[in-house]
């Protein structure tokens, strides 16, 4: 049997997929394929096909019914002039800038603090911080909407006790964005903290101990050891937050029901919500698909940039 071995691989192992002796490897491969096939099958039907169909639809002005009428790149022309779409991208960026640094910092710091077993009740704190993540977002958003009401909401009532003027939490564009960030932080902090915790546990304790022995302060350990080693985890959390900022939906619809999630003067609408509105609200499926394609490309570029600047040590 002639084995083709490439220079980078060890000579004692055949390249993967190459038959060892007759059909054994082939048989093993076949069983392997069989076991993973359900996922690929479902992905092909519910993931790949809609994706491709969406790409095709993006070249049409289909309204969900009847014949599909292809109009080529005219949708692109419409998108470039679509004020609300660019507003939604702008909102996504703003929300990202307001939310992500704060969330990364908080989740990392909390994870470091709660990673140490010396903190009393650390398990209890972890649970409490994680609980908002498992609450139903519609219910949570609705409660926040009640709390943030500028006339009768609890937040302003508390502020009134300290003689602070009532804040128009949901009534002005910037306040609406900040309120949205507050809700998203509250809901997702636990999730990101847990990811950070998992990442921290891969850092060997010896490193920290050695550093302490050498006289490093906890702050120095944090900045010189923890953060650099946590780079891939931070990148992961960053990418999730990026995509999440542009995809906010439930939070918007429950906080801003009067404007169907758009917020005052469209200050909180995200591309995700906008695509949904165009497709299922205005019956413009062709256009919504085109917006989805453009949106995908833009977010993909943003994530590529993030990976380039933060991920290069780990390729």
């Amino acid at each position, binding site marked *: 049997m002639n084995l083709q071995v490439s220079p980078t691989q060890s000579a004692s192992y055949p390249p993967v997929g190459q038959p060892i002796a007759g059909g054994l490897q082939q048989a093993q491969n076949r069983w392997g394929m069989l076991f993973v096939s359900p996922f690929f099958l479902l992905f092909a039907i519910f993931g790949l096909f809609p994706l491709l169909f969406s790409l095709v639809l993006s070249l049409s002005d289909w*309204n*969900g*019914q*009847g014949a599909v009428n292809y109009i080529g790149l005219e949708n692109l022309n*419409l998108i470039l*002039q*679509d*004020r*609300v779409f660019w507003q939604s991208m702008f909102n996504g960026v703003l929300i990202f800038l307001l939310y992500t640094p704060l969330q990364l910092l908080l989740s990392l710091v909390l994870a470091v603090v709660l990673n140490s077993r010396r903190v009393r009740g650390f398990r209890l704190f972890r649970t409490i911080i994680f609980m908002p993540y498992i609450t139903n977002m519609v219910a949570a958003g609705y409660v926040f*909407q*009640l709390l943030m*009401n*500028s*006339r*009768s909401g609890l937040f302003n009532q508390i502020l009134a006790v300290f003689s602070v003027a009532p804040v128009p939490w*949901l*009534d*002005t*564009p910037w306040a609406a964005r900040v309120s949205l960030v507050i809700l998203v932080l509250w809901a997702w902090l636990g999730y990101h903290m847990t990811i950070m915790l998992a990442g921290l546990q891969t850092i060997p304790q010896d490193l920290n101990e050695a550093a302490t022995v050498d006289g490093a302060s906890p702050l120095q350990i944090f900045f010189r050891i923890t953060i650099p080693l946590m780079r891939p985890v931070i990148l992961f959390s960053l990418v999730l937050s990026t995509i999440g900022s542009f995809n906010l939906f439930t939070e918007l619809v429950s906080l*801003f*029901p*009067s*404007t169907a999630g*758009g917020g*005052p*003067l*469209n200050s909180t609408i995200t591309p995700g919500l906008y695509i949904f*509105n165009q497709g*299922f*609200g*205005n*019956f*413009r499926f062709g*256009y919504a698909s085109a917006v989805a394609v453009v949106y995908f490309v833009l977010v993909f570029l943003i994530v590529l940039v993030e990976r380039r600047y933060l991920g290069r040590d780990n390729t």
Partner: protein
Amino acid sequence: MIRLTKQLLVLMVVLLATSVVYGQDAPSGTITLWGWSFDSMEATGLIDAFKAEYPDVNVEIVVYPSGDTYQNLQLACSAGQGAPDVVQLENSHLAGFVALDGCLTDLTEQVEPLLGEFNDYKWLDAERDGKYYAVPWDSGPVVLYYRQDIFEAAGLPSDSETVSELAATWDSYLEVCKTIKEETGHTCFANSRAANDARLYEIALWQQGLGYYNEAGEVTVDSPENVATLEKMGEFWEADVTSEAQPWTDPWYAELGGTGEDSTASLVEASWMGVFLKTWIAADLPGVWGVAYMPAFEEGQVRAANDGGSTLAIPEESDNKDAAWAFIEFMLARPESQITQFAYNDFLPALESTYSDPIFSEPDPFFGDQTPRQIYLDVAGQIPSATVYGPSYSLMNGHVATAIQRYATGEVSAQEALSQAAEDIRRETGLQ
């Protein structure tokens, strides 16, 4: 032998044909209904009465709020299956569905004899290229709801006729609002600046027979009349007599249903709002709200507009259209059915033959023993045809609402706000 066989064959064919014909005569099977207002038929025994007349028909009601109804119907039409036999559609969204080829059944033949029986304007959204696709159910004549106690506290008369005179035009209504604000500190009505949903604006357009487009199909969102209408609304913002409560949120309900400092003195809305006030929003405040005619846009103009109102339609996918039509005819085209529903939920029937019924002159204890139904009737008969609703209503409403928000918060002038909205609408709909 051969002749006998032939005769037998003919006999069999004749019997078969007869049974098929007779089988088709009486509607039968199960019909599924989608909508949110069928309680007026269930709770009043109308469904039972229907079953008594059509014993072979079963009725299955699926309650969906309006948003879900539209989404599910759109998905069913798109997928080619899953649509119900009867679906409730508000006039505002009806034209959008009529525009979807093959979604709704053409009911022109069945509806022809009924065209003159209902409020004229209700047929606009159901019609396309001379064919009709839905039957009107209820109307939304717009009136002025006002708080008698707050008016009295401001030193104003609180009986329906005088209030109607006081608020005869939007200008005099503004004066009334200013008086109330000065004397009692109460706001006149809720009209959020930053979260405006364009509802009041659309009412103001409707009463002038205006809308978002004209008969030629051109977009009129930025026409001088539309701009003037927005600027008239702007006068109320300038005078600071409105509240910022966002519609359909808890604080908005609290303003309408409470007696505290933040409660609001009036509300220009359709007759179905009176039902909501009575049954849940202000259920604890009987005898305090009153009903008057809405202000005219200008002296001598009509004091009537429409907001909302539903219809019933039959999706094309339904395989039981006979039974579905029998249901619609029974519930909407017969005065007795409509009156029974009206007695239950106060939604004004679009069927004009009901208007002579004595029920309309009954005093309503919730409204301090006034007779609001007479006002609803009177207004319903005067509602002008307007081009607010249409196939692209959602899209247009979205852009105009944003324009109003920009104008109300002082970002741009009314002309600029509406011009931009018009430009976006023209580009996205392809209309001129």
